[in-house]
């Protein structure tokens, strides 16, 4: 069985390579008729769209074609939780604030959208006020008021109706006791959480200080929803647009089309160019097929932005001409290994250091999928695209990143374990890459006498019952645990809080933080939460990153990367750091 599958795959990629040779030859040696004179150069170079706009243009018109290998989790602004969806939703919905539609780090910057400016915090950062722009309308011409924004947040509270979404607002706003959301508590007075003193003003009240609430305000849940048109679970079939595009046809499971929304007023919206006349999105399309079509120019974007499949990877990388038309952004995901200080002898910093030194990071990179599809070797926690990231390397694993055996042995001696020690490493059984990484560690730590035993666990209960349950991890000597984290937005809080704050660890299990227990780190997090000045705040996140690395509670493996293919027909192509993929708001059609 296994063998035939592989044979089949091999045969398939051979055929595909053949096909590509045919197509690729054509498009590189002779200028295609459809291409503008600049086509060859304008396709840009490898990683050209990471920091600059490829094919800049203001030409309006055309239909942008996108495809999704799976289904959208939901098109409902109150029920969607994928980065690509948040990227895309800006086409039809306007939240209070948004990420700038710009290449590189600028994309990480927040800018007002529905609101006139970024939020105004109270001194204690527990109350945030936004003023809405005048003249913003729904697609039916009704003016948008602060009540529609409030209603949007209230309805998203109901996780029975909207189970896909996040719970940031549920968790942080000061809701009345027993509040169950707009549907089940329709008559509740929710002013303790959200006030709308007038149609243009909305005030959020938090349970605790939150210096970065503007990131909350960019969440799609703040996209206004007209109560009269709300159909709950079915609203995603026709979301009432506030952005430059509205839904035309929408068949859940198959795809949808967006057309221009004539009620959108560009005067209220400096952020959107709205170049194409519409969007054509197909869902549940064969993943390899998407790659083929994007490479052939029949499709513009693989909307999920998670990178090409292995088959396409094998065709793109060896051909410089094809590779030049791709980008390889580093996302906001870190793959790492937790080093559990609860499991002796890892309670000793020197022993944890030995692990940091001995690890062969190039082997780990290979295990995660290599330089292009796996990721960039990580030296700290915060990924490069998140503000607060600083380049530092506390425990240099040799100049070639293959591990520093000498230093590791010194550390082991200092730890009182000169001949090494035995412990276990857990990983999610369903994830072959985690297994490969665990094996790579087994191999490289074995060089200094640290013997690892592999312990696979089912992924659904990985945190709830095994690696994430402190008692279990300790009793079963899970000294190391394969782990991964991606933040919901490019911000130190979103990235670090859940994985380094020791207070999120519960004895009952379920936490992603399985190893970092440092009261100083906790204290720093509190400071950051209260610090409303972004620069000072980011400085604190850097400090936290360094502190955790000093503690050697985490062995960073790689910051995940994905290989994206630039559309042949699109203009204004660039990667937005906030999403780690092409910015769908900026893109136009040639």
């Amino acid at each position, binding site marked *: 069985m296994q063998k035939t599958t592989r044979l*089949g795959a091999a*045969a*398939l990629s051979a*055929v*595909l390579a*053949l*096909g590509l040779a*045919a*197509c690729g030859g054509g498009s590189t040696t002779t200028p295609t008729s459809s291409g503008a004179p600049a086509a060859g150069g304008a396709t840009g170079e490898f990683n050209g769209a990471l920091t600059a706009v490829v094919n800049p243009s203001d030409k309006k018109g055309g239909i942008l074609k996108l495809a999704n290998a*799976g*289904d959208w*989790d*939901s098109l409902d602004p109150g029920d969607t*939780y*994928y980065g690509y969806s948040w990227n895309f939703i800006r086409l039809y919905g306007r939240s209070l604030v948004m990420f700038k539609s710009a290449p590189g780090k600028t994309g990480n910057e927040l800018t007002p959208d529905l609101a006139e400016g970024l939020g105004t915090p109270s001194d204690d950062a527990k109350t945030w006020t936004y003023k809405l722009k005048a003249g913003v309308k729904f697609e039916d011409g009704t003016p948008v008021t602060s009540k529609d924004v409030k209603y949007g947040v209230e*309805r998203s509270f*109901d*996780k*029975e*109706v909207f*189970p*896909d*979404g*996040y*719970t940031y607002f549920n*968790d942080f706003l000061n809701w009345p006791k027993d509040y169950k959301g707009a*549907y089940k508590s329709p008559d509740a007075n929710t002013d303790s959480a959200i006030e709308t003193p007038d149609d243009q003003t909305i005030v959020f009240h938090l349970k605790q200080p939150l210096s970065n609430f503007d990131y909350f305000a960019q969440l799609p849940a703040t996209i206004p929803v007209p109560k009269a048109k*709300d*159909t*709950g*679970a*079915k609203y995603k*079939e026709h979301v009432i647009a506030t952005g430059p595009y509205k839904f035309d046809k929408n*068949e*859940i*499971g*198959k795809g949808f089309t967006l057309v221009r929304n004539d009620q959108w007023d560009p005067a209220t919206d400096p952020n959107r160019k709205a170049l194409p006349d519409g969007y054509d999105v*197909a869902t*549940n*399309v*064969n993943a*390899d*097929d*998407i790659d*083929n*079509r994007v490479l*052939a120019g*029949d*499709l513009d974007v693989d909307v999920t932005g998670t990178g090409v499949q292995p088959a396409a990877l094998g065709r793109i990388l060896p051909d410089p001409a094809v590779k030049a038309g791709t980008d390889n952004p580093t996302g906001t995901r870190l793959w790492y290994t937790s080093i559990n200080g609860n499991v002796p002898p890892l309670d000793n910093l020197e022993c944890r250091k030995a692990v940091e030194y001995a690890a062969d990071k190039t082997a780990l990179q290979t295990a995660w999928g290599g330089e292009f599809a796996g990721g960039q070797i990580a030296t700290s926690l915060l990924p490069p695209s998140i503000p607060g990231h600083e380049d530092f390397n506390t425990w240099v694993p040799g100049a070639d990143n293959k591990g520093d055996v000498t230093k590791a042995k010194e550390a082991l001696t200092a730890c009182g374990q000169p001949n090494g020690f035995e412990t276990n490493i857990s990983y999610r059984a369903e994830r072959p890459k985690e297994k490969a990484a665990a094996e790579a560690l087994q191999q490289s730590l074995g060089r200094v006498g640290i013997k690892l035993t592999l312990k696979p666990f089912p992924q*659904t*209960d990985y945190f709830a019952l095994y690696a994430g349950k402190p008692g279990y991890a300790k009793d079963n000597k899970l000294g190391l645990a394969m782990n991964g984290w991606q933040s919901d937005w490019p911000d130190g809080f979103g990235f670090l809080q859940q994985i380094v704050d020791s207070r999120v660890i519960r004895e009952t299990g*379920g936490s992603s933080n399985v190893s970092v227990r440092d009261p100083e780190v906790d204290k720093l997090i509190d400071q950051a939460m209260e610090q409303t000045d972004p620069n000072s705040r980011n400085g604190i996140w850097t400090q936290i990153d360094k502190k955790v690395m000093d503690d050697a509670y985490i062995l960073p493996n790689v910051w995940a990367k994905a290989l994206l293919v630039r559309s042949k027909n699109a203009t204004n192509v660039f990667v937005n750091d906030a999403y780690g993929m092409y910015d769908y708001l900026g893109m136009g059609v040639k």
Partner: protein
Amino acid sequence: MVTYIIRRLIWSVVMLSIVSIITFAIFFLVPRLAGATSEDMAARYVGRTASAEQVKVAAEKLGFNDPLIVQYGRFAKGIVAGADYDYGPGVERCPAPCFGYSFLTRLPVWPDLLDRLPVTISLALGAAVIWVIAGVATGVLSALKRGSFFDRAAMSIALAGVSMPIFFTGMVSLVLFSYGLKITVAGGTYTPFLTNPATWAYDLLLPWITLAFLYAAGYARLTRAGMLETMNEDYIRTARAKGLRERTVVVKHGLRGALTPILTIFGLDLGLLLGGAVLTESTYSLPGIGKYAIDAIGRQDLPQVMGVTLVAAFFVVVANLVVDLLYAVVDPRVRLV
């Protein structure tokens, strides 16, 4: 005859119930036996990083906390009597047959299935016409010219056809005709017949041919074997002795005699295909029952899986019934009792 059909129909309902129970058991009972709690099961149907509370709410909403028999009963009742669904601001009536609401999209399953049926029917019937004509014709010619170059070539191609998986032939055909020569729409698409019959046929051409190739190969082999057998029958000699033209002998007497096994296989093949041409539909991104099934299984969307399984089983059961009825039509010696 009538009592036979009635009895078979009752039996079909029993079969479908058994299929639904087995499917239900695979997806609901087996995980339970493996120790999964209702929360574990619900965890699949909430967002990508749902909190424990969120999962608990979902488990309650999806009814995972009820005893299995109640859950199955609710499903069965929906099919017979319809069901009510709370979509937030109100309650929606899902009329019978209600196959429930998708755990993930939270949309009713039945309209989805109805919506996808024409695609699969178009694909299956179109391909069937091609493969029956091509396969049977090739088989007949091969049998008549047994041992000739044509026979050898046709049978080698047929062997290749039978053994090549559709995702392979499909991908090759896409690379050649779709991306390469750009003869057909890139990657495949579907246009409803009523929208534009010409585009409908044009869009389906490649899937039809690919699918038909796979089946035609088998039919050619089957027909050839059957023809070799029947052409040696005494009644063929009789037909010739009457002075019938050779073509009439071959078609009216020979092929007719070889038809029964072909018809049987055809009925079952078509029944299975109507339940979803999984590989073809995924290869060509055709939004049919098969694509729906594979997507549903991939997402473990149980109501969708149940619905699609039942529809597929329905077609198989009906195909079986039709085949048995046709048997009696084709072969008068068969008695339906």
